[in-house]
C-alpha cells in the first residue's frame, strides 16, 4: 500500500481527523466537517496551534469531529465569540476556528457575533446555517425564510436575519457564503478565511436532513440547488505555492492575503468586486429579492487591523510573561506608595 500523501508540514490527512460524528447521517454539517479537514490539511495548519471553538447546538458539536490533536472548547449557547476573543488575546499564535449555528449566531448569540466582528477578532467563524433548531427538534431559527414551512406545517412569519448582511453592515473584514455540498467552492473559501487576519464570517447553508429538508423549506437541498447563484469560481493558492501566471483580464481577480497566500476569483455571471462593500450589500439584497442565495466571497478587506494588533499585544502568549515583566520594580512600587501618602 502506498504511503499516505503528506502536506507541507509532513502530516497525513488522517492527522486532521476527529472522533466519529454523532450527527444524523446525511447532515450537511458532516460535509462541512470534511471540508474543514481538507482545508486544514491542505493548508498545513499545525494542529497544536489550532483552537476549535463552538457554542451550543448540532453545529457546535462538530469541533470534536475534526483535528483531535487540537484543543477544543465547546462553551455555552451563543457565547463562543467572547471565549474566542479572550483566547485570541491571551495567545495571538493560536489559529481560532469557531463553529456556530444559526440559532447560536443569529438568535441567542447575535450580540456577541456582532461585537466580535466590530473588534475584528482574528478568527474564522463558520455559521452552519440550516434555519432550524435541530437538537430541540425542529423549531424555526432566526435565519429561516418567511414562508418556510416546518415539518409540522407551521409557516414562518418573520423576516430572516442574514448573517452575511449583518456582518457586512458592521464592516466585517471577510464575508463569504457557501453551501455544505459545494466543496469545490467551500474549501478554498475556508482556506482563505483561515489565512485572513481578522474576523472571517462564512455562512454555510447546511440542510438539516431531519427537520428542514422538505418541500416547504428554503434551506433544503433541492431548494438550494435550484436557487444558488455563484459569484465566482474560487481558488486558493497558499503562501508556499508559486503562483502561475494565467490571468485573463476582466475575468480573474487575484487577492493577496496578509500571509502571502492568494485567493483567485474567476468571475462567473456577476461582476462583483469583493472590495466594494456597498456593492456587496446590494448584491445580497438583490439576491434575496429574487429568492436566490448568493454564494462566494462577498467582501474582503485585508487592510483592517485585527483586535490583538490594535491592542498592541506581544506576539508571544501572555502566559509566558513572568513576574519580572508583569510587576513594576520595587523602586517603582515604593514611589507609588510614597505618592499615596
Amino acid at each position, binding site marked *: 500500500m502506498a504511503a499516505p500523501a503528506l502536506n507541507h508540514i509532513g502530516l497525513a490527512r488522517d492527522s486532521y481527523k476527529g472522533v466519529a460524528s454523532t450527527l444524523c447521517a446525511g447532515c450537511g454539517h458532516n460535509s462541512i466537517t470534511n471540508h474543514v479537514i481538507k482545508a486544514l490539511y491542505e493548508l498545513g495548519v499545525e494542529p497544536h496551534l489550532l*483552537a476549535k471553538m463552538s457554542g451550543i447546538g448540532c453545529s457546535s458539536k462538530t469541533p470534536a469531529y475534526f483535528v483531535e490533536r487540537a484543543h477544543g472548547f*465547546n462553551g455555552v449557547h451563543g457565547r463562543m465569540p467572547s471565549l474566542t476573543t479572550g483566547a485570541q488575546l*491571551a495567545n495571538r499564535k493560536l489559529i481560532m476556528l469557531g463553529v456556530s449555528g444559526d440559532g447560536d449566531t443569529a438568535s441567542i448569540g447575535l450580540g*456577541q457575533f456582532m461585537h466580535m466582528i466590530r473588534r475584528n477578532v482574528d478568527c474564522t467563524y463558520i455559521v452552519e446555517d440550516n434555519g432550524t433548531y435541530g437538537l430541540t427538534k425542529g423549531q424555526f431559527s432566526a435565519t429561516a425564510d418567511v414562508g418556510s414551512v416546518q415539518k409540522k406545517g407551521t409557516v414562518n412569519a418573520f423576516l430572516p436575519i442574514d448573517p452575511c448582511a449583518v456582518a457586512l453592515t458592521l464592516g466585517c473584514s471577510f464575508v463569504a457564503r457557501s453551501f455544505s455540498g459545494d466543496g469545490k467552492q467551500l474549501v478554498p473559501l475556508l482556506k482563505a478565511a483561515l489565512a485572513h487576519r481578522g474576523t472571517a464570517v462564512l455562512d454555510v447553508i447546511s440542510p438539516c436532513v431531519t427537520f428542514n429538508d422538505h418541500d416547504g423549506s428554503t434551506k433544503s437541498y433541492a431548494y438550494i440547488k435550484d436557487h444558488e447563484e455563484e459569484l465566482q469560481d474560487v481558488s486558493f493558492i497558499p503562501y508556499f505555492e508559486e503562483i502561475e501566471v494565467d490571468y485573463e483580464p476582466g475575468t480573474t481577480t487575484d487577492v493577496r492575503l496578509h500571509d502571502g497566500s492568494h485567493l483567485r476569483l474567476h468571475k462567473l455571471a456577476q461582476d462583483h468586486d469583493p472590495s466594494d462593500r456597498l456593492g456587496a450589500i446590494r448584491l445580497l439584497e438583490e439576491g434575496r429579492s429574487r429568492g436566490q442565495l448568493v454564494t462566494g466571497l462577498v467582501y474582503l478587506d485585508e487592510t483592517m487591523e485585527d483586535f490583538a494588533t490594535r491592542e498592541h499585544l506581544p506576539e508571544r*502568549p501572555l*502566559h509566558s510573561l513572568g513576574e519580572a515583566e508583569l510587576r513594576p520594580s520595587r523602586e517603582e512600587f515604593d514611589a507609588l506608595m510614597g505618592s499615596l501618602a
Partner: protein
Amino acid sequence: MLPTVNDLTFQAATVNGSGSQSANMVLTRAIFSLGIPVAPKNVFPSNIEGLPTWYQLRVTTQGYQARKGDPDVLVALNPATWRQDLEQVRPGAAVIHQHLYSTADARTDVDYFPVPFTKLAKTEIQNDTLRKQLTNLIYVGVVAGLLEVPFEAIQEGIRRTFPTKPGAWQANEDAARIGFKYWHENFSAHERRHVLRPLTGLTDSQILLEGNQAAALGCIMGGCTVAAWYPITPSSSVCENLAAYADRYRLDKATGERRIAIVQAEDELAALGMAIGAGWAGARAMTSTSGPGISLMAEFSGLAYYAEIPVVIFDIQRIGPSTGLPTRTSQGDLAFIYTLSHGDTKHLVLLPGTVAECYEFAQTAFDLADRFQTPVFVLSDLDLGMNLWMSPQLQYPERPFDRGKVLTKDDLDRLEGEWGRYQDVDGDAVTYRTLPGTEHARAAYFTRGSGHDELARYTESPEAYAANMDRLARKLETARAAMPAPVVETADSAQIGVIAFGSTDAAVVEAREDLREQGLEFSYLRVRALPLSPSLVDFVAAHERIYVIEQNRDGQLYDLIRLELPSQLVGRLRSIRHYDGRPVTAESLSRPLLELEAVPV
C-alpha cells in the same frame, strides 16, 4: 469649656455635579498631612448632576474608619436638604451654611455660621469657567478657620489632590483663602468646640487609597494579563484604575507594546466569557462587576466551575435586588455568589475587609484560580471599593506566581502512560491541564460544559457524571484549607463572640472598643473566605453566644455558618443585620447587640 482635639465628624451636604468632591479631597488630604487619621465616606446619588450628595470626614486619634451617624461640623450647601441635614447634627455642632438659608424656627442647640458663598464667589473669584467648582474651596477655607487648621496644610492638601496639575494650585489656593479670610474677619471671636492639632506617630507609613484602586494594583502585581469588563457602579473604578496602572507599568514606551489587554465588553456575559477564554488559553484573566452584572454571569460561572477554568471575578457589591440602590453599599451577594450557577456549584470566595486585603486578595485570587482551576470571586463592596481608607503601605509581593498544575511540552515528553485532563492522579482532586498551543501530540483535550469523563470526552454516563461531581466536591475541600484563614481576636474569658466579614470590620473594631468601655468584652472572628474555615466551629464552641453581623437583610453569612455547624452549636448564633445602604456604624452594631444581650437565651 476646652475644645475637643482631633475627634470630630465633618459633613458636607452639597449637590452632586457641583464639583464639591475635589474640595472634600483637599480638606481630607490637608488634615491627613497634619498627621491626623482620617476616614472619608461619600454618600452619593445615582445621578450626574443636581441630586443631594453627602461627604463625611471622620477624624479620630484611634484612626476609626467606620462611618458615624451625627456630625459635629456641617457644611450645608444644598437648599433642598438643608433642614434634614440640620436635624442630623449633634447638639453643639458648628453649622456653616449659605447665609440665605433661614435659621428661624431652626434648632437652637447648634452654632450657626452663615457665609455668603455665592456673593463671595461672584465678587472674589475672577475665573468665570471654574467659579462653580472653586466656590467649594471657599468652604474648605472656612472649615480650616473653624478648626484652626493652618493654611499651609490647605496648600499641601491642594498639592496632594492635584499632584499632576500644578497649574490649578494657585486658583484653588486663592479660593480657599477667601473662606479662610472670611472666617477670621467674621467669626474669629467665636469660642471653638473642636480643633485639629498636628500629630506625630499616628499616620507614619499610612496611605490613603480606595479599595478598587488597591484591587487594581493587586491585579497588576498578581500578573493579570487580560481584563474584560462592562461599566457598572461601583465596580468601574477597578478596571479604570487597572488601565491607569497598565499605562504606567505594562506599556513598553519604545515599541508601544502592551503586556495586558483591557477590553470594555458589550455586556457582562461577554466580559466573563472573554476572561474565561483567556484563562483557558493560560492568561491570568479577570472581570469586575456588581450585582446586576453578577446575575448575568451565572451561566459562565457554571461553565468555568464545571469545565475547571481559572478566572477571577470581582464583585463590588451594591444594594439589590434588581437595580436596587446603585450607589449604596451592601453585603447582599454573599449567598448568591457562593453557589452561582444552576446545578450543584460551589465557588471559592475571598472576602477582603480592608483596602490592604483588596490588594493582597486580588493577588491571592489569581494564585487560587490557577491552583484550583476554578473561578475565584473577590467580594468587595461600594464602601470598601469607592471610599478612601487609611491603610498601612502595601507590601511588595515576595512570592512568585503559583501557576498550578500545567503540563508543558517537556512534562508531556517525560510523562509515561495516558494523560487525562480530569484524572485525579495526586489524590487532591486537582487535575492537570495543558494550554492550547502546547506543541505535543498528546497535549490537546476538549473542554466542554457538557458531561465529560476523565479524558474530557463527552459522556452521559451516570457513573462518570457522579464521579466527576464528587471529585469537584473534594476539590472544594482541598481548597478550603488553602483559603485565607479567619482573623481571630480572642478576649480572655469573653462569653460572647462576634463574627463578621468584609467592610463591616471597621464598625466591629470600633464597637469592640465602645463596649469594652462599657464593661462588655467580646471575641472577634473575621471570616475572610468561603468555603468557611473549620476553625470557625472551635470559635463558636468557645463562646456561649455568637453574634453574626453583616450588611444584608437576610443574615446570609449567619445562614451559611449555621449550615456548617454541628447541630448542638447552631442555637448559639444570633444575627445582627444592617441594610439601609449606608456604610454600617459602630453604634448600629453595638445597640442591637446590647439589646439582644438583655434577652435570655
